[in-house]
């Protein structure tokens, strides 16, 4: 079986004009008739807006400080014959707490149902960034991790094994240095493959909860799935209900979850037979 090109090629490829970034057409604020919606999530100050600008050609203000983006910005790009709408979300450390900027991020991933979520992680602070990555992976099935700030990691003498990471997370992991545009072509490729269903993710789900909680979650999931067939993230909804999250309680009451379930018949379904290569990269 051939292996999708998830591991970035040597850097001199990227300077070659034939390299597939030529496929990228930055559409700026033009987002008409998009085929796929892509969200950019991640910790504050990891370079989401920089990636956003690199893909859309817009000039969303970037700055070296957390909390720069508080509302979501949208832009468009076209790649490999498909049109994408890209949504830059506010940076957040967690999807579990309740400040307005964190809620903007969470609600979009949960209720906006992006076709792909790019989770931007700071390679120099991987452990803390993974906390959010894991939370996002609880919510969505289709994600790509952009392991950003690789240049800084290298400067600090850190080596990050993106294959091990991809295997553990169950989603493609692309090393990038967005400030100098490195890795953007590979990121685009991974996003398009997840969007079109060429890659089917098997995202990491939490395993280390205590048995009592596991049982409670399973019971609720059964009910949720009966009430809302096809709900993509019943487990996470169950966890939030057990935590008494008012926004999720409200979503159940108002039937927003039902809408989630209906929209979850994305293009990924068509290509389920293609296994996730990253997961098999032993």
């Amino acid at each position, binding site marked *: 079986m051939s292996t999708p090109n998830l591991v970035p090629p040597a850097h001199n490829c990227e300077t070659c004009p034939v390299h597939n970034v030529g496929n990228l057409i930055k559409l700026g604020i033009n987002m008409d008739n998009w085929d796929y919606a892509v969200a950019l999530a991640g910790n504050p100050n990891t370079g989401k807006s920089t990636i956003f600008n690199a893909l859309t050609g817009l000039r969303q*203000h970037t700055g070296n400080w957390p909390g720069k983006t508080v509302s979501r910005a949208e832009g468009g790009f076209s790649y490999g014959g498909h049109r994408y709408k890209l949504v830059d979300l506010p940076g957040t450390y967690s999807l579990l707490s309740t400040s307005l900027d964190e809620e903007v991020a969470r609600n979009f991933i949960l209720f906006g149902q992006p076709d792909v979520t790019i989770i931007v992680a700071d390679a120099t602070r991987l452990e803390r960034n*993974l906390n959010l990555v894991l939370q996002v992976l609880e919510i969505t099935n289709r994600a790509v991790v952009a392991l950003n700030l690789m240049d800084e990691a290298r400067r600090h*003498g850190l080596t990050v094994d993106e294959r*091990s990471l991809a295997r553990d997370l169950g989603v493609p992991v692309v090393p990038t240095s967005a400030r100098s545009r490195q890795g953007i072509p590979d990121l685009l490729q991974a996003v398009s493959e997840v969007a079109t269903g060429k890659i089917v993710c098997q995202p990491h789900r939490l395993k280390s909860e205590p048995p009592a909680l596991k049982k409670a979650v399973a*019971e609720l999931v059964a009910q949720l799935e009966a*009430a809302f067939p096809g709900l993509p993230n019943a487990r996470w909804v169950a966890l939030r209900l057990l*935590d008494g999250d008012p926004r999720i309680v409200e979503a159940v009451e108002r039937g927003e979850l039902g809408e989630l379930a209906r929209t979850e018949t994305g293009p990924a379904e068509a290509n389920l037979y293609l296994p996730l290569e990253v997961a098999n990269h032993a």
Partner: protein
Amino acid sequence: MLNQNQLQPTPLAVPSAQDILNKAAQLRWEVGSNVHETVVEAIYTDAARIADRAVIYPDRPPRFNLDRTIDRLVTSRLWGFPLMILLFTVVFWLTIAGANIPSGMLATLLLDTIHPMLKAGAASIGLPWWLDGLLIDGIYMGTAWVVSVMLPPMAIFFPLFTLLEDFGYLPRVAFNLDNLFKKSGAHGKQSLSMMMGFGCNAAGVIATRIIDSPRERLIAIVTNNFALCNGRWPTQILIASLFIGALVPSYLAGLISALAVVGVALLGVLLSFGVSWALSRTLLKGEASTFSLELPPYRPPRFWQTIYTSLIDRTIYVLWRAIVFAAPAGAVIWLSANIQLGGVSIAEHLIGFLNPFGLLIGLNGVILLAYIVAIPANEIVIPTVLMLTVLVTGMHGLGAGAGVMFEAGDNETLSLLNAGGWTLLTAVNLMLFSLMHNPCSTTIYTIYKETGSAKWAAISAVLPLALGFVVTFIVAQVWRLIAGM
């Protein structure tokens, strides 16, 4: 346990939303109240395990860590504030010293060269006097004045400020201020929204979304106006260099003017603390909540890109906004100066009406009228002041007629203002009033949208204005008392 569930026959009826919520409520009793902690712990455990497998750390940590060393210095109790003041003084000094020459050149080009050419052109095609006045003396002059006075300082100040921001200095300022905000009963993140306010108050108000508690967010919104915005920096810089810089020998003028501007900006920060403190003990009582502030690594600024984006996004944006508002304001001023009621122009009526109160607080009617005209944009205060002063002093020899936004290099500006009865007190109080008055209409509207409350929008508008009146009144009285002794 999972198996039992799967073995159970499918329930006859699909559970309703209420069934699910009841079930959840019941299960919550069984799992206990620490679900949140349990989930967070599970996440942390997994994250640590995965990260540990993926990251290989360097054999031994580098002996010298530059980031740490810089941080120890710029956030130290002893050196943090002095360094901050020094850094901002240098930025303003570069701005003031560097803007003089290009400002003069632009004024010569746009006002002394192009304006007469336009007038001659209008005369040659026989444009009626009122249209010529409205278009060329009103709209063109208003626009040209804004460009020549504001473009050079902004083209220097914004790139410098953006470089500091890109380098990662702003969160350190926030770190230094955090403790003081907390002591004022406000949220430490307010220091971040204040940093945004130093660019634009409307943006600063939106930035308060990072604050979770509604009480602290309201405090941050109401006090954001005390961060001097883009539209007010030029006023501060110009008045400081005209009046404060003139007090000292010329080789010190730039430095002293810069210090005066930094002083007003710092006063704004102190006012933020003071008003936050007062609000959190009266209208918005409550405890300050805690948060963690991440100090990002220092990053070498991308020099050319920063210059480019700061010129496009900030300089041109602010300039454009100024022009958009200055052009119609120029027209309105020209009209009010040329339409007469009972032999006196509307503008003179208004100035005469406002003058007694203006003088009481150490300003004058011209300045107050200018601030009314400038409600849509602080950027046009100075052009409006100059134009109205020409009108009042009747120095028509200098301008080309009633309602012409005045063409002037710095020294002519000074002599004009002196002729308009300006003193050092007027200048000082104008700088204070520029810091403490109602936010621009865009900011007020943003506050209304963010809070959803007309009451808080009104409080945010009136509170700084009232404070401005009180402070300028006291300064004027004390000043006159001392001067009269």
